[in-house]
């Protein structure tokens, strides 16, 4: 080639490469799809029921700072959408790594009826006339005409409750004799079991937000996000939404929703049934929307802790803040369309709102403790708000300890120091919730959470999460008894994920008295080597169960021993974490100054003498990616077999409620 031609080709190549670079690009397309992310048709990421509402959204970035995006068009299967659309830029309110002239286009509250895989496209025009297109896909899952339609769905959710947690509760609460269980857990008696894969949209290790919303929206969400797909804005309430099971069944069938938990009610598991947010921590806005959008979710029962969010900021104990509240602009289409298309309320920054009074004005009976809860007549009450603690309720071990002490006329227990001596147990809350929801003529969806199974597993506090699992199982028994009396109610027992890699390693070879001596002696040689009984030395730990249904003591001779596979550094002495000293005892450090040091992650406290180095940094155990067991009881239970995705659960629940129970496909075994 002559040199001049070579130069020409080089210049041409450079010019053409610049042309290829200089074009607008679609940086995000929602609902998420592999078609958009990697070009592959499968796996399908986003799935919806026929006519289940969801939002379309695209982020489009111009090719340089001087340009803007002037027009955006969405199409599904080639047909351009004529629904109202919003278009904003990122001059304000977007994530730090997003260019300020990025455009975000949204269409809100679409429903697609036709079953099958649908391809959707976004076409955008830049201010210089250049265009860009991108495509993604989603599936509408068709329902099969089945038999009996179930009226009520009860989702019993043991937070962090993997197989080991269930087994430990059975060993402690039910006991074994020569290898056979003496008293099964209620959840053990459910006839159908499957295994659930719990990954979130962005990790094999999920948290409680997508861990809940997968079950009740049919879709994967990012960690910390519930009922929404991720977006590029900072506002936690404007994300593209996915209609919840509660909302879908309330809209199409008039079903009611109940949410019962032992945690603060703003927490991810309860909120992930009714509130759409990319920030599970936005407490004020979350609790406001429980009430404001009850016409969408059908919320009729809300019980748990979290009273601090419901008090006006002028009242001591309130945690309300305008910084985590919600308020949609009525002039900016990006959020005003949420209001007009979803029918959501626009909200306002109102930290002085008296939310308890607003719930009462809306017809909710209010209960602040077990006594006031007992007084509610379920035959005359349509809605209940129960707020039994300012944040999380006390755990079962401490509630039971308080009740036993009160029977003996004693005070000064943990619940007394918390100012809340009369908190209900989860099974009592569940019974009351069912009593009210039972009267809903179109049926209900009820979610009941044993929240501190997870929270105490994070603390690697063995006895406290075991007792919380037993408390949760008593609530399972309440749900099962109700379903048995009705024959139109499906109950599932499941978990959002496993917590802390619980391992039932064996039994103590020594009595509790001897264990205390070994604790004083300290060290691995005493506390591990002389205590941990493996294999046949584990035997069958025997816990005596009191009349109240809980162990008389957790510090028994030859106790169950639990290790943690996802633990942080910790100190183990195998004994129940001490009920602390009463007031009046001498403190360890009297009137001495504290020491402080530069913020340094290498610091550890020194508490005991059997140090276990953790696999994870920090102070707490963590969630794991392990599959968890699901158990089902009632019509439609047979759907919950096999190794299933957590999003599959949503479609199985909907199939039974919307189109009727079908016999599952048991596979190609006849061939």
């Amino acid at each position, binding site marked *: 080639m002559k040199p001049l031609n070579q130069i020409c080709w080089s210049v041409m190549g450079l010019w053409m490469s610049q042309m290829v670079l200089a074009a607008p690009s679609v940086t995000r397309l929602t609902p998420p799809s592999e078609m958009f992310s990697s070009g592959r048709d499968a796996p399908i990421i986003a799935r919806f029921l026929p006519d289940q509402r969801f939002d379309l959204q695209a982020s489009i970035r111009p090719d340089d700072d001087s340009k803007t995006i002037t027009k955006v068009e969405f199409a599904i299967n080639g047909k351009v959408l004529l629904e109202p659309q919003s278009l904003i830029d990122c001059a304000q309110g977007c994530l730090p790594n997003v260019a300020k002239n990025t455009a975000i286009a949204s269409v809100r509250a679409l429903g697609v009826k036709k079953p099958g895989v649908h391809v959707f496209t976004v076409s955008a025009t830049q201010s210089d006339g250049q265009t860009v297109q991108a495509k993604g896909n989603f599936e509408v899952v068709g329902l099969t005409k089945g038999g009996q339609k179930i009226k009520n769905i009860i989702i019993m959710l043991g937070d962090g409750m993997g197989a080991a947690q269930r087994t430990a509760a059975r060993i402690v609460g039910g006991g074994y004799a020569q290898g056979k269980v003496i008293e099964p857990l209620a959840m053990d008696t459910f006839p159908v079991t499957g295994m659930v894969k719990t990954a979130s949209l962005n990790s094999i290790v999920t948290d409680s937000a997508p861990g809940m919303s997968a079950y009740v929206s049919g879709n994967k969400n990012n960690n910390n996000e519930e009922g929404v797909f991720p977006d590029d804005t900072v506002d936690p309430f404007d994300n593209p939404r996915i209609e919840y099971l509660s909302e879908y069944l309330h809209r199409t069938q008039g079903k009611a929703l109940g949410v019962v938990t032992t945690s603060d009610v703003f927490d*991810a598991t309860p909120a992930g049934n009714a509130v759409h947010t990319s920030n599970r921590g936005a407490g004020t806005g979350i609790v406001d929307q429980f009430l404001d959008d009850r016409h969408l979710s059908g919320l009729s029962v809300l019980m748990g802790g979290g009273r601090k969010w419901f008090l006006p900021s002028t*009242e001591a104990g309130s945690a309300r*803040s305008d910084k985590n509240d919600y308020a949609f602009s009525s002039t900016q289409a990006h959020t005003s369309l949420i209001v007009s298309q979803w029918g959501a309320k626009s909200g306002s920054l109102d930290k002085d709102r008296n939310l308890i009074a607003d719930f009462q004005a809306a017809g909710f009976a209010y209960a602040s403790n077990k006594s006031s809860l007992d007084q509610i007549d379920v035959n005359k009450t349509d809605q209940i708000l129960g707020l039994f603690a300012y944040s999380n309720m006390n755990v079962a071990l401490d509630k039971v300890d308080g009740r036993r002490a009160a029977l003996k006329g004693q005070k000064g227990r943990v619940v007394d120091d918390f100012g809340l001596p009369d908190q209900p147990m989860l099974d009592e809350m569940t019974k009351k919730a069912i009593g009210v929801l039972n009267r809903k003529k179109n049926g209900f969806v009820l979610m009941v959470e044993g929240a501190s199974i997870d929270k105490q597993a994070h603390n690697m506090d063995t006895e406290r999460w075991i007792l919380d699992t037993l408390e949760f199982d008593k609530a399972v028994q309440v749900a099962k008894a109700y379903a048995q009396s009705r024959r139109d109610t499906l109950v599932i027992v499941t978990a959002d994920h496993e917590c802390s890699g619980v391992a039932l390693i064996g039994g103590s070879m020594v009595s509790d008295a001897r264990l205390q001596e070994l604790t004083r002696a300290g060290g691995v040689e005493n506390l591990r080597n002389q205590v941990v009984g493996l294999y046949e030395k584990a035997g069958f730990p025997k816990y005596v169960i009191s009349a109240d249904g809980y162990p008389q003591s957790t510090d028994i001779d030859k106790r169950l021993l639990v290790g943690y596979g996802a633990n942080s550094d910790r100190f183990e002495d195998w004994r129940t974490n001490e009920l602390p000293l009463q007031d009046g005892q001498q403190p360890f*450090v009297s009137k*001495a100054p*504290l020491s402080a040091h*530069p913020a*340094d992650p290498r610091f550890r406290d020194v508490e005991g003498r059997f140090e276990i180095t953790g696999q994870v940094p920090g102070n707490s155990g963590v969630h794991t990616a392990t599959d968890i067991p699901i158990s089902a009881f009632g019509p439609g239970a047979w759907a919950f077999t096999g190794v299933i995705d957590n999003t599959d659960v949503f479609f199985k629940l909907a199939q039974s409620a919307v189109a009727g129970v079908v016999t599952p496909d048991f596979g190609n075994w006849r061939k």
Partner: protein
Amino acid sequence: MVALGVSWVGVSFAQAQDPGSYKPPAAAVKVAFGEFFQMPFGPKGLTFTPKAKALAGQWVSIKGYMVKMEQPLTGQFILSPRPVEINDHADGDANDLPANAVLVLLDPTQSEAWVTYRSGLIELQGQLELGRQETAQAQVSWIRIKLDPKGIVLQAHPTPLAPLNPMGHATPIDLKH
């Protein structure tokens, strides 16, 4: 003195490094957690007791437990009537704290320091402050105790209390389980 890249310019040090010789600025009135709000708590919000209101701004002495956190904050810690561990990273504001937990604040000149966590009952003296305060991170507190900067022994490195007996406590104590 510069340690671990943190500048100590402007930070005041304890005049006496010997813990036993520390004396608070004023006579401290003893207050217990149960005395801040009327107990047991009512059905809605909390009500400060007359004793608490009278002590606002005064020097108080209180016994409690340092709250163990996943991600301790500099310049502050929380004191609780019972030992509590919170998973602030995993669970945020859905926590196991009692409503009468006290936010203990170091002097602003010491705001970059972590207070060494210790388990067990401790006793503090500081200036009591009541009323609503909200941080930039939307954390709301109602009871605060502000520590005397001279009451903090600043160390370059975190070290455990020494010596420890086999139970891990600083001084022998008769525990009732």
